[in-house]
């Protein structure tokens, strides 16, 4: 049902895990014009370039993170005809296999949903203030940013789509 749909947050930064099916249900309920929903789920990988990690810790910027994610969502909504967007990003300690991030994009047709979800992730990876620290056999280690993430974000410049 659409009741209270306007009151649901588009962006959440939280310690707790999330329920993908419930989030998709809440995003699409009451809107029968939606034909396509794309979800992205990011998980903690055990093997890194430095070996197997025991845990990962995500630092964020309370307030600043929500602000940055809100701008990224607004930019996606300006670029594509979306019927719904949802971003949930966790912080704090996490074990390998745990969910880190969820991005949902809903639209009438699939191209907009796919592109918007990919755009949201590319911008989140390069513009949202989160920092990963991996805890492995060699102790704690801050993860380096990847150049390919900058390249992925760059492809959306100048209104290009993919």
């Amino acid at each position: 049902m659409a009741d209270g749909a306007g009151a649901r947050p588009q962006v959440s930064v939280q310690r707790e895990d999330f329920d993908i099916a419930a989030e998709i249900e809440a995003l699409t309920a009451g809107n029968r014009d939606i034909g396509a929903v794309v979800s992205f789920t990011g998980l903690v990988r055990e093997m890194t370039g430095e070996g197997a990690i025991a845990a990962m810790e995500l630092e964020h910027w309370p307030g600043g993170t929500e602000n940055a994610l809100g701008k990224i969502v607004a930019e996606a909504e300006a670029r594509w005809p979306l019927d719904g967007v949802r971003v949930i990003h966790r912080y704090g300690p996490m074990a390998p296999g745990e969910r880190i991030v969820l991005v949902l994009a809903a639209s009438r047709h699939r191209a907009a949903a796919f592109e918007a979800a990919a755009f949201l992730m590319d911008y989140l990876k390069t513009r949202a203030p989160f920092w990963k620290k991996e805890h492995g056999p060699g102790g704690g280690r801050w993860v380096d940013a990847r150049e390919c993430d900058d390249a992925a974000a760059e492809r959306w410049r100048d209104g290009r789509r993919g």
Partner: protein
Amino acid sequence: MQVLYFAWMRERVGAAAEEVDPEGAATARELVERLRAREERYALAFADLAAVRVAVDQEMTDLDAPISGAREIAFFPPVTGG
């Protein structure tokens, strides 16, 4: 002015947030130079300026952004979430 540090910059500075006297610094880069000259821990945190990102009043910008009138400057390494 309030200055925030995140991730390994926070660890090197030894503080997540502090009140800093900008000593007349007009840009974020000038503020960094004053901090670096002040104490070894700042010199360490800001050793590689290519790895420093800056936000002025929560707007992502660059080191040459003006900071006069700003309430809050945040310094952090490239982000690695997602």
